[in-house]
């Protein structure tokens, strides 16, 4: 087998540009996805039935359709709605919407799994639903949420590669550009895999670090 090391040497710095873009997309979409997902999760735990149903439907849609299709819908749908935001923001919005759906489900599931006696004790001292959520259930849910949220962020990071189809110049797309001009697919895709692996390992370590630092009782 001929593995073209010269191309690899040439590609390493080029791919770093794509890496920066991938990290940027993941950071922005992660921030939006987490915020939106936590908000949706809390809404679905709230008392208002129509809102609960809406969130339920949203989560169902996000989980029940391929992300690639969601990306295309946002990419081609935004201009129809009169928003010309370019491929970067179309991609970020699609990934955020997707991530938010999964995060909402994690928040709902984790908060819902806090032992029932906690809610009853809080009710017995006269707390309302919102207060119970805020002061009793949420604080107990942060730590158990971390592993599941990390999983979602890792998935989000991997999913940024799908934005190559709408020509966002992220890591995968920058690799494809090199392949197109030098025709070295095996070398470049192997290299891409390594790049993603390093980024995701770093993320996992960070998550375990945060989990250890959060208080447990």
């Amino acid at each position, binding site marked *: 087998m001929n593995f073209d090391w010269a191309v690899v040497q040439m590609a390493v710095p080029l791919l770093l540009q794509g890496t920066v873009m991938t990290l940027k997309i993941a950071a922005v979409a992660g921030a939006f996805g987490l915020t939106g997902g936590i908000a949706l999760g809390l809404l679905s735990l709230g008392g208002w039935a129509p809102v609960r149903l809406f969130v339920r439907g949203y989560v169902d849609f996000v989980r029940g359709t391929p992300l690639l299709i969601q990306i295309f819908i946002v990419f081609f749908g935004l201009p129809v709605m009169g928003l010309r935001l370019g491929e970067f923001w179309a991609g970020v919005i699609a990934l955020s919407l997707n991530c938010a759906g999964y995060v909402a489900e994690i928040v709902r599931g984790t908060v819902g799994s806090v032992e029932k006696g906690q809610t*009853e*004790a809080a009710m017995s001292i*006269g707390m309302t639903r919102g*207060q119970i959520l805020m*002061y009793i259930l949420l604080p107990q849910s942060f730590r158990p949420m971390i592993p599941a949220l990390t999983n979602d962020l890792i998935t989000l990071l991997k999913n940024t590669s799908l934005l190559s189809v709408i020509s966002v110049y992220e890591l995968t797309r920058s690799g494809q550009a090199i392949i197109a001009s030098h025709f070295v697919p095996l070398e470049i895709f192997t290299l891409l895999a390594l790049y993603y692996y390093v980024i995701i390992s770093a993320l996992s370590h960070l998550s375990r670090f945060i989990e250890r630092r959060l208080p447990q*009782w």
Partner: protein
Amino acid sequence: MVTGMGGIQGQAPLLSVRNLRKSFGDREILKGISFDLVAGKTMVLIGPSGSGKTTVLRCLNHLEEPSGGTIMLDGEAIGGSFIGTDGKFVPSGEREMAAQRRKFGFVFQRFNLFPHLTALENVAIGPRKVLGLSRNDAQARAAEKLKRVSLAEHMHKRPSQLSGGQQQRVAIARALAMEPRLILFDEPTSALDPELVQEVLDVMRALAGEGMTMIVVTHEMTFARQVADHLIFMADGHIVEEGSPEDIFTAPRNEKTQGFLRHVLNR
């Protein structure tokens, strides 16, 4: 001043329960429970497991929604109100229900302390967030209640650092801090190691002595006999027999009561 059981007949009851019913699906747990409780008195509910004692307590403060009957506390219908001359029952909204619920203290079998808060915070959070006291006032009140259950030196520990008996005393302090009209105790010593039972019963005995109104579900017969002003024996969702503990313990009339007492007292 009139004292003793004969003297309370004329007083308006603090709590008045009429024909309380509760079904889970088609299983009827409470088949019409009625009783009155005068302020300052302690009522003890005894009976075999599954007789509905715990469900009575949980229905009183609407942790379980009753299926029928009325609960009047201080002349106010709990869980809703009667509107107009025909007395139509309108259920309370969430806020109203929460406000009514805090008039009942509730002490759970498994304590249900908030694990992420210290003993002091467990007791202070109600006064702070529900009653709207300032942080300092809420903490001062919490410290005072913890002192009352002899836990002043443990107030900065979390529940996981406390023994079961200490946790249950924190739970009692948490109920006291809301200054409820009465406190409901749901088998407060059943989850405790035997050597920790007394410290909790001692606190409850002291509360009864200070004139706190209490309803206690318990299997501690010695305690029931010593502390109860009024004893109720329940079986199969009914009140089978009630009266002074002396009467029921020494001369039970119903054969179910006789069987139960023979069993628990090992006679």
